[in-house]
């Protein structure tokens, strides 16, 4: 295939602009057609090149002006990166042009010509290999930008444009001086010519390069020399901001990358430093933004800073450099352009105004796509890039840098998801919004482009394309089914989960089988409750399937990459699910921030362990070098403990679980929390006991588990809200399981697994019951209920069985857990934390009793007298759970026997003997069948006896009680329920001060107030911005003197 010349790109842009000049002013449509055609030609040319590089034989080509080789003439180069970026710039230009159609038709041909010049100049910056030529193109960009800013209807844009011109005067000063110094030293203006010069750089060349470098870097809007850019982002027309963010940033980054070849690797740390400061600070400053466009501006600046950091890592990234830098850059450009285009369709400028996106599912889909891309979630290119970057940085020991990157990324994800929460949950304004088809299409195609890029990046990566994972693809496909009624979707989901389990269970090992059953079959059972919902329930099934896809991928993952992908997917899916609750906005946010923080810890742990070797099998965790092993252990453990909500990392859980919908709570509590436990299993299975400075880390985990169990339970008893009570109790239960794992002996692990099963059953059941009751009564506050036993007997039975099982009282299955626990602690080598576990057992009793008493017993309230039993579909799974609990109590061996054998692979000693109906350990014995029979027999005999004696008993009315010779008439005053454990609070209340919450609040508060102080350096005065620029130059100069 014959490739078109690169000059055509420039020629088409210039030619189009000239042609526009000849058109008559009234021929608006023709002018627009010329503009679109010119941009389309640029796209066509560049896409031919991209195609040629990707699938054909094309080689990078230098195009020479005037037929003379460089350095005597300017040459343009087209390689894969150039072609791709030109394509990107062209597409941004074209989409913005289409988007701007109405404005263009109002303003006439000149505006269109300016746009063409802008795009042409940006392409020129990318293509040229001559620094002075680059200068010219930059100045063209300045001039056309100055023009395009005026497209905005916002009059403030004028001032922003002028500030920009001031700064660009400084930039061109630096650029020109740098150019002439460099020319003086090298005798050429050609970048390749300079890199070929082997002579050591003279002092002048170094200074020259510094000036050139600083000029180009300032085009990237580095902190603090970026006030002008923020003002432009805020005031310019969003379609221009899209170009300014996506295309201008891209071109400038490529220019920096090109020119860094002159300075050599010695300058990479300078680039890194500027990049990381910009990335972190801009993201923090964005926290305080309420204006959408300014917020996006901060985010743009941050992202470009991140790419600059990646450029600074060119030395260690090697041939992955393009993959990483491109991944982040493309994700940023697509997402940011898309978001700016979206912002043009929203009339209000405050973040809450974006709630109008809810009116259009396509727009919502696009928004989700964009913020997922920016946050680097799978399957988007940024995810792969983040993964590779972290591995490279950890392999070469740049720990501080990766810590800052991950911190900045977390902050960014924080404000983006907070924004998403606003959109989904805040009240929508009544105002009618018109979504122009043209604009919608622009955004939609951009979002699809993002997915297409994911596909490309998946193919380019050395791993299996994430999109090829069947569960994930299935979850995505559910988006296409959103138009179906909920009940149909529910059936599809249940069948699919059962079918997937049926397909995959032969390949599971016993551990995976337990988790697989809970996730897929257990998930299907919980979904039965969802039949209760009518309508379409938009978004519910996609989110739920995403979570289950992540979970089912997690348990079969063999290397760190697939594990991490699954982890992120289940996190995102569950976040969407949690966000659905009525008041769950802040809690879902806290969940996603903690989870992403945890995910970053996991990423760091894996990357540190891998030391650059990829793919890294999970079993490889066992062979990690002694120097890294404890740190890997700590990072991974922290990551997994954010999911199990170990104390200290737990504050997201109560709200998130309590505010979720009635059928979501059991999913995210009963099933999702197990992901963290699975992770801990994997960790401990492979790494075992690990010491850091002589401290045994599993002992720390013992303490974490014990403290979680104790404090989780203690906090649970003081809750008035039934679902919060259950949520806190989950913290405690996960604490037990963590404790069991950390005991590092056979029975400890068995106990943890038993907790996995039991907790799934009784917590799902209790959440369903309580959720159903809350639906009926309209409140979750227990003291507002009471006496519901007669009205909701089935719910009562479920709760009763649930709390007996949970408290560990024989004969139900909870006792098995306790029995194994006691046997397990017999051999544990570190006893002190056991004290807390002992204490938390009876405390659990307190909240369980409170749950059943204040809801079902005591005095029935007047307003509840006509309530009915909870709907059938909510009761059905509960009754199934009751049957399971009874069955599992009698025959625990069914599930545990094989697992017990499996654990023997890791701990040979201490296996139980399951030979007869008696289960024996080294220390004791337990006969579940006999226990059940004995207790039942005694119970039934006594019951029969009592019923016989009271066969004529008279059922008395509610208030017929012995009450100081009086008769109470109000249930409210007689139902002892509010602050039920007041006396206990007096004794132990000092332990439940919200210290942890205050700690995290202090951190976020400091970030916010710090941001509020720092952002005041952007005074709005153009002259101040010039001072910022000078200060920036001086500081960078001082710091890079050593270079």
């Amino acid at each position, binding site marked *: 295939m014959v490739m078109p010349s690169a000059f055509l790109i420039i020629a088409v842009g210039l030619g189009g602009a000239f042609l526009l000049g000849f058109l008559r002013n009234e021929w608006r449509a023709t002018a627009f057609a010329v503009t679109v055609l010119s941009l389309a030609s640029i796209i066509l040319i560049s896409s031919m090149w991209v195609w040629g590089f990707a699938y054909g034989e094309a080689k990078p080509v230098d195009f020479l002006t005037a037929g003379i080789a460089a350095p005597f003439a300017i040459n343009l180069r087209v390689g894969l990166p150039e072609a791709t970026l030109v394509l990107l710039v062209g597409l941004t230009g074209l989409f913005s042009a289409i988007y701007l159609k109405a404005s263009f038709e109002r303003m006439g041909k000149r505006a269109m010509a300016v746009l063409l010049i802008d795009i042409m100049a940006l392409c020129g910056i990318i293509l040229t290999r001559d620094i*002075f030529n680059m200068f*010219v193109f930059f*100045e063209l960009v*300045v*001039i056309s930008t*100055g*023009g395009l800013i*005026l497209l905005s209807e916002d*009059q*403030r844009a*004028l*001032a*922003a*444009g*002028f500030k920009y*011109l*001031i700064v*660009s*005067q400084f930039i*061109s*000063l630096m650029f*020109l*001086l740098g*150019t*002439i*110094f460099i*020319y*003086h030293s090298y005798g050429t*203006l050609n970048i390749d010519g300079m890199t070929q010069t082997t002579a050591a750089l003279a002092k002048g060349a170094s200074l020259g390069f510094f000036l050139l470098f600083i000029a180009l870097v300032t085009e990237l809007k580095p902190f603090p020399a970026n*006030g002008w850019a*923020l*003002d432009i982002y*805020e*005031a310019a027309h969003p379609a221009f901001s899209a170009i300014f963010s996506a295309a201008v940033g891209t071109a400038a980054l490529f220019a920096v990358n090109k020119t860094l070849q002159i300075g050599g690797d010695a300058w990479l740390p300078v680039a890194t430093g500027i990049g990381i400061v910009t990335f972190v600070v801009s993201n923090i400053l964005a926290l*305080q933004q309420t204006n959408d466009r300014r917020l996006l501006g901060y985010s743009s600046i941050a992202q470009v800073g991140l790419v600059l950091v990646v450029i600074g890592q060119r030395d260690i990234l090697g041939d992955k450099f393009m993959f990483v830098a491109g991944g982040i850059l493309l994700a940023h450009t697509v997402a940011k352009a898309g978001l700016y285009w979206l912002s043009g369709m929203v009339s209000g400028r405050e973040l809450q105004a974006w709630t109008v996106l809810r009116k259009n599912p396509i727009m919502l889909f696009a928004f989700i796509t964009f913020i997922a891309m920016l946050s680097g979630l799978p399957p988007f290119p940024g995810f792969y890039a983040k993964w590779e970057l972290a591995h490279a940085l950890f392999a070469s020991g740049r720990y501080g840098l990766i810590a800052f990157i991950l911190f900045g990324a977390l902050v960014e994800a924080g404000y983006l998801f907070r924004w998403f929460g606003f959109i989904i949950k805040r009240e929508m304004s009544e105002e009618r919004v018109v979504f122009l088809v043209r604009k919608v299409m622009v955004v939609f195609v951009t979002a699809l482009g993002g997915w297409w890029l994911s596909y490309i990046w998946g193919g380019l990566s050395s791993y299996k394309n994430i999109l090829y994972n069947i569960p994930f693809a299935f979850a995505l496909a559910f988006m296409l089914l959103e138009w179906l009624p909920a009940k149909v979707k529910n059936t599809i989901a249940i069948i699919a989960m059962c079918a997937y389990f049926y397909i995959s269970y032969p390949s599971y090992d016993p551990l995976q089988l337990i988790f697989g059953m809970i996730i897929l079959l257990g998930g299907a059972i919980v979904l039965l409750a969802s039949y209760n919902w009518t309508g379409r329930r938009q978004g519910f099934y996609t989110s739920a399937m995403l979570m289950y896809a992540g979970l089912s991928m997690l348990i079969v993952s063999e290397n760190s990459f697939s594990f991490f992908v699954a982890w992120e997917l289940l996190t995102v899916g569950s976040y969407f699910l949690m966000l659905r609750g009525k008041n769950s906005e802040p809690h879902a946010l806290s969940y996603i921030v903690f989870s992403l923080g945890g995910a970053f810890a996991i990423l760091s742990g894996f990357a540190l362990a891998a030391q650059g070797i990829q793919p890294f099998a999970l079993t490889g965790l066992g062979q990690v070098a002694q120097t890294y092993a404890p740190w890997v252990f700590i990072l991974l453990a922290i990551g997994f403990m954010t999911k199990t909500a170990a104390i200290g990392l737990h504050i997201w859980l109560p709200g998130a679980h309590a505010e979720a919908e009635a059928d979501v709570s059991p999913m995210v509590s009963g099933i999702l929390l197990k992901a963290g436990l699975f992770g801990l299993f994997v960790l401990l299975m492979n790494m075992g006991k690990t010491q850091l400075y002589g401290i045994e880390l599993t002992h720390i985990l013992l303490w974490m588990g014990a403290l979680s169990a104790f404090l989780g339970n203690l906090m649970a008893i003081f809750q008035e809200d039934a679902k919060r009570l259950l949520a806190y109790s989950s913290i405690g239960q996960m604490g037990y399981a963590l404790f069991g794992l950390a005991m590092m002996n056979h029975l400890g692990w068995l106990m943890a697994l038993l907790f996995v099963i039991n907790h799934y059953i009784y917590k799902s059941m209790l959440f369903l019951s309580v959720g159903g009751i809350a639906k009926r009564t309209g409140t979750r506050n227990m003291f507002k209920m009471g006496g519901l036993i007669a009205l909701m007997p089935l719910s009562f039975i479920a709760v009763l069985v649930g709390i007996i099982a949970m408290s560990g009282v024989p004969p139900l299955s909870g006792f098995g857990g306790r029995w194994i626990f006691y046997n397990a602690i017999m051999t544990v080598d570190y006893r002190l934390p056991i004290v807390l576990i002992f204490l938390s057992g009876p405390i659990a009793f307190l909240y369980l009793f409170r749950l059943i008493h204040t809801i079902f017993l005591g005095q029935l309230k007047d307003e509840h007298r006509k309530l009915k039993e909870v709907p059938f579909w909510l009761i059905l799974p509960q009754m199934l759970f009751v049957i399971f609990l009874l069955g599992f109590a009698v025959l625990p061996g069914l599930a545990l026997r094989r697992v017990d054998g499996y654990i023997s692979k890791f701990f040979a000693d201490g296996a139980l003997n399951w030979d007869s109906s008696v289960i024996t350990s080294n220390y004791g014995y337990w006969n579940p069948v006999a226990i059940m029979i004995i207790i039942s027999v005694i119970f039934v005999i006594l019951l029969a006896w009592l019923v016989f004696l009271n066969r004529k008993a008279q059922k008395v009315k509610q208030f017929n009680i012995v009450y100081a010779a009086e008769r109470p008439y109000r249930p409210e005053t007689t139902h002892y329920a509010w602050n039920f454990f007041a006396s206990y609070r007096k004794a132990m209340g000092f332990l439940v001060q919200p210290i942890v919450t205050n700690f995290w609040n202090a951190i976020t508060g400091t970030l916010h107030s710090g941001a509020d102080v720092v*952002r*005041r350096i*952007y*005074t*709005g*005065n*153009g*002259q101040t911005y*010039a*001072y910022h620029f*000078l200060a920036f130059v001086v500081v960078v100069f001082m710091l890079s003197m050593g270079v």
Partner: protein
Amino acid sequence: MAHIAMFTGFALILMGLYGALTNRNIMRMIVFFTIVNTGINLVLVAVGYLPGRTAPILDDVVPASEAAAKIIDPVPQALVLTAIVIGLGITALMLAYAYKLFELKRTLDISKFRELKW
């Protein structure tokens, strides 16, 4: 000669910068920026100047075969020409902005245009 030019150039740049940074009046700022531009051009020329050589025009006095040894490097001068043109363009744009800004607020004080901040 070249040193004087270089020195003057830098002096102009510094004067221009000082003026642009200390004057709040937009028009004055623009004027000072043109001074900066002049200074830059002077520096460019000064850097490219080689003493004792002639203009880079190939004619009878300077045959093509000896050109490399006899003429001043033409590139910086070409750069200056281009830079002047670009500087003109930017200055024009700034002036247009100044006019618009004045229309908007009837003032040319840069510190009065601060609605966009933080």
